[in-house]
């Protein structure tokens, strides 16, 4: 069994991270009835004997003593991290695995990346090495940050370079929150663009998220819970809730949105942590879903968003779950995969679902979807026996699909509007080590990516021709 380390950077990253740890504990508490520290728990948590002084040595087996998150918390402001450390989750975090500053990055990627990067490089390295040493077999770093700010975006992507250099064999999965069009940070296009270049070059897999989509999902849920069916909804099943967690009730409006992202990460790792009839480890995600190194952006969708307290769920409801996964209303970014081109698709199913249910739905949905000519059967599937809390089954779909293109094109558009006028550029250029060519390189990198998606899209309407086979003499 392998372990993963979560590195949460910046305000957004830490808020999402906090929700993640909350829900992770809840999930494991529901599954782990006997209080034994097992392999599943060890993937994200250490078991520490707090009676022994000093470092709190790790206990590898036996009863759960005190669980510590395999996490590194990084923020250049103190507010969010302090709140976490004073909140109900304080004991879950190792107080030595933090890096904070007070001045913040001023929504400036250059400050986050260059200034704080060089200032904190050694400390970052030290904390990462410590986390790695505490793992028997470290498989993956989950990095969480926003794209539009300064710390998450700048320092978060600086971190990627450190990870690539120091831990080249460990996967780098980035959960990146992209700014919506109504983002109030004026320089977010610059920050996002500069960060994109790093994600292009140094991430193994990126799960783009945008706030607008999360918000729309919440609105949809609110409609249901306040409507006729409201009473029938099982409260713990809401993808937005943290009911039953250590934190009693959502304190901030973002919590509901962050819980969705937290559930995404839990489902992503479910088949690696828990048993099932068709397991999927984290390395299989990258292996199957990334046909060419640069095309590693995966659009995700989670269903169901809630469960009705309905004992007998007939297969039709199950099938509805599969249909929803492909609807544009369930995607975590503004994207419509149904009408774009699939390069690959993964279906991570949890709970009481068997292979025949999975196959029936693939057969049913396939005709309406467009897959690239060389990957007509581009499905990667997994069945994990353990459902999420409050559900009898759930589905996470990960699509490597050209529907990400509009997000990137819009980003480039917003960037160019600022850049053409050189607006706010001086804030960046006055940072030591920051050159104007960095901007040009970043645009160039994104444009190359967009072009790849364009070329793939062009093949969509072409007839699928078989490549002539090798002819052999007998």
């Amino acid at each position, binding site marked *: 069994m392998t372990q993963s380390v979560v590195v949460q950077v910046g305000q957004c990253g830490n808020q999402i991270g906090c929700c993640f740890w909350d829900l992770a504990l809840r999930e494991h508490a529901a599954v782990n009835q006997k209080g034994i520290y097992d392999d599943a728990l060890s993937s994200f948590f250490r078991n520490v004997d707090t009676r022994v002084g000093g470092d709190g040595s790790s206990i590898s087996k036996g009863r759960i003593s005190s669980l510590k998150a395999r996490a590194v918390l990084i923020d250049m402001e103190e507010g969010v991290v302090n709140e976490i450390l004073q909140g109900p989750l304080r004991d879950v975090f190792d107080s030595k695995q933090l890096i904070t500053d007070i001045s913040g990055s001023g929504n400036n990627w250059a400050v986050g990346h260059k200034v704080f990067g060089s200032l904190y490089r050694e400390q970052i390295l030290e904390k990462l090495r410590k986390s790695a040493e505490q793992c028997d077999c470290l498989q993956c770093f989950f990095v969480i940050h926003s794209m539009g700010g300064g710390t998450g975006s700048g320092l978060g992507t600086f971190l990627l370079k450190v990870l690539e250099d120091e831990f080249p064999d460990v996967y780098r999965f980035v959960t990146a929150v992209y700014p919506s069009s109504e983002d109030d940070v004026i320089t977010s296009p610059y920050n996002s663009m500069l960060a994109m270049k790093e994600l292009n070059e140094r991430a193994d897999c990126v799960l783009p998220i945008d706030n607008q989509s999360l918000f729309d999902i919440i609105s949809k849920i609110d409609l249901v819970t306040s409507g006729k069916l409201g009473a029938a909804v099982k409260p713990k099943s809401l993808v937005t809730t943290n009911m039953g967690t250590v934190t009693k009730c959502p304190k901030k409006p973002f919590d509901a949105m962050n819980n969705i992202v937290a559930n995404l990460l839990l489902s992503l790792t479910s088949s690696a942590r828990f048993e099932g009839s068709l397991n999927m480890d984290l390395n299989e995600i990258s*292996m199957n879903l990334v046909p060419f190194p640069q095309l590693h952006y995966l659009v995700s969708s989670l269903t169901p968003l809630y469960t009705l307290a309905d004992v007998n769920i007939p297969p039709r409801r199950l099938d509805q779950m599969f249909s929803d996964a492909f609807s544009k209303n369930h995607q975590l970014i503004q994207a419509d995969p149904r009408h774009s081109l699939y390069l690959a698709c993964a279906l991570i199913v949890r709970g009481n679902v068997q292979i025949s249910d999975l196959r029936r739905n693939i057969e049913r949905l396939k005709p309406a979807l467009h897959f690239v000519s060389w990957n007509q059967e581009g*499905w990667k599937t997994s069945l994990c026996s353990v459902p999420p809390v409050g559900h009898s089954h759930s589905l996470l779909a990960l699509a490597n699909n050209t529907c990400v293109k509009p997000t990137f094109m819009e980003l480039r558009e917003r960037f160019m509007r600022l850049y053409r006028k050189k607006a706010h550029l001086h804030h960046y250029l006055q940072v030591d080590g920051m050159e104007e060519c960095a901007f040009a390189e970043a645009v160039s990198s994104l444009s190359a990516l967009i072009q790849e998606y364009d070329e793939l899209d062009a093949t969509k309407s072409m007839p699928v021709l078989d490549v002539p086979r090798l002819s052999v003499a007998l």
Partner: protein
Amino acid sequence: MRSTISRLQVIHSLVFSTGPSLWLGMSIVTVQLGQCGNQIGFEVFDALFRDSHCSQGLCSKRENEAYQASCKERFFREEENGVPVARAVLVDMEPKVINQTLSRAARSGRWTYGQHACFCQRQGSGNNWAYGYSVHGPKHEESIMNLIQKEVEKCDSLSGFFIIMSMAGGTGSGLGAFVTQKLQDQYPSSLKMNQIIWPYGTGEVILQNYNSILTLSHLYRSSDALLIHENDAVHKICARRMNIKQISFRDLNQVLAHQLGSVFQPTYSEDGSFHYRRNPLGDLMEHLVPHPEFKMLSVRNIPQMSENSLAYSTFTWAGLLKHLRQMLISSAKMEEGIDWQVQPPSSGLPPLGKMSAHKDPHFNTSIANLVILRGKDVQSANVEGFKDPALYTSWLEPLHAFSTWKTQRAFGKYEKSAALVSNSQLLVKPLDVIVGKAWNMFASKAYVHQYTKFGIEEEDFLDSFTLLEQVVASYGNL
């Protein structure tokens, strides 16, 4: 042909060796690889055990005991506390499945796996053949081969190895290919049969076609026979014949285990004798793999229905064999929807080297067939229909192309049952489809970087394609 002849000499020397278990028979060591291999392996041992301890033997007590003892020697060994231990080595690169498999066996209380029969790592092969073959293989070669050696030492007389693996993933496929090669090096006089699972046509794993062609091409060089099961076919059997509504992998595996059990459980060594065959692996190879270029075998069994439905049906050997023969001829994968229009070429033996002008394109030409009959009145079963020369390719005498194994002892609750192991064109079309898809993907170079990262180059792919195109062509030209 030289290798074939020397192989036959080896088999003969094994068959006629004298040893303490002369009458009991030789043992088979099973190597279960990856999630699929381990999940199936459990079902196979369970099916073998439950059948051999089935009370409805429909034969004498003494006969039943001989059957049990033969099965036991072949697949199990005795442990101190009397619980039979499967002659198996379990290998996986991550621990969850092996843990599950071991506990299922222990919970059953009927039989168990050896205490130190497992090799496990922490991180899987990522569905990457190259990772299984080039990284895990060399790294863990010594440990795995040692485990196998220990199990071999516990056999009085080793017939060979039964290696259970899938083609679609990374461990079963890549590490499976590696281990098979090492077995060939280390045990050149023992036989190796690889039980390979072909994935569903519509993806379980996106890399499944690459992994499949790499696996098949490598195994073609190092294995003695490839016994192939297709998930699509087994699924259909579950859906239409077994009436299972929500089909799980466990259901598929149990149908598969039933098919394998009906092949490998004891049968009489020759017509009229009541001694059980000593070396089924050897005999199987001898009958079914006359030429190293043709080693793909498939299994069909009849009746295909759940044990619960048996009470409402009676069978005759004539009926069962008629259906089985037509399944063979028309390439049917199950007992339903058989195309009765397909008939063998009417002009008898086709002219040497040429395809008969009257040959039905849907007709499935065989190289060799083995029919295994179990149950009541088995001596009266008429298998003449399978001896028709028109069924076979021209370069083997029909006399050598067809064999029958029998036992009066029924299999499970099936009063009469038959299995057909066939070396024929049955698998050409599915193989062709896999090669085609893999080739399309390879032409675009998609995912190739995932393989070159671990030492499998484009040239290795091309070698695999070439070998398999030859296999497709050879079988197609029968």
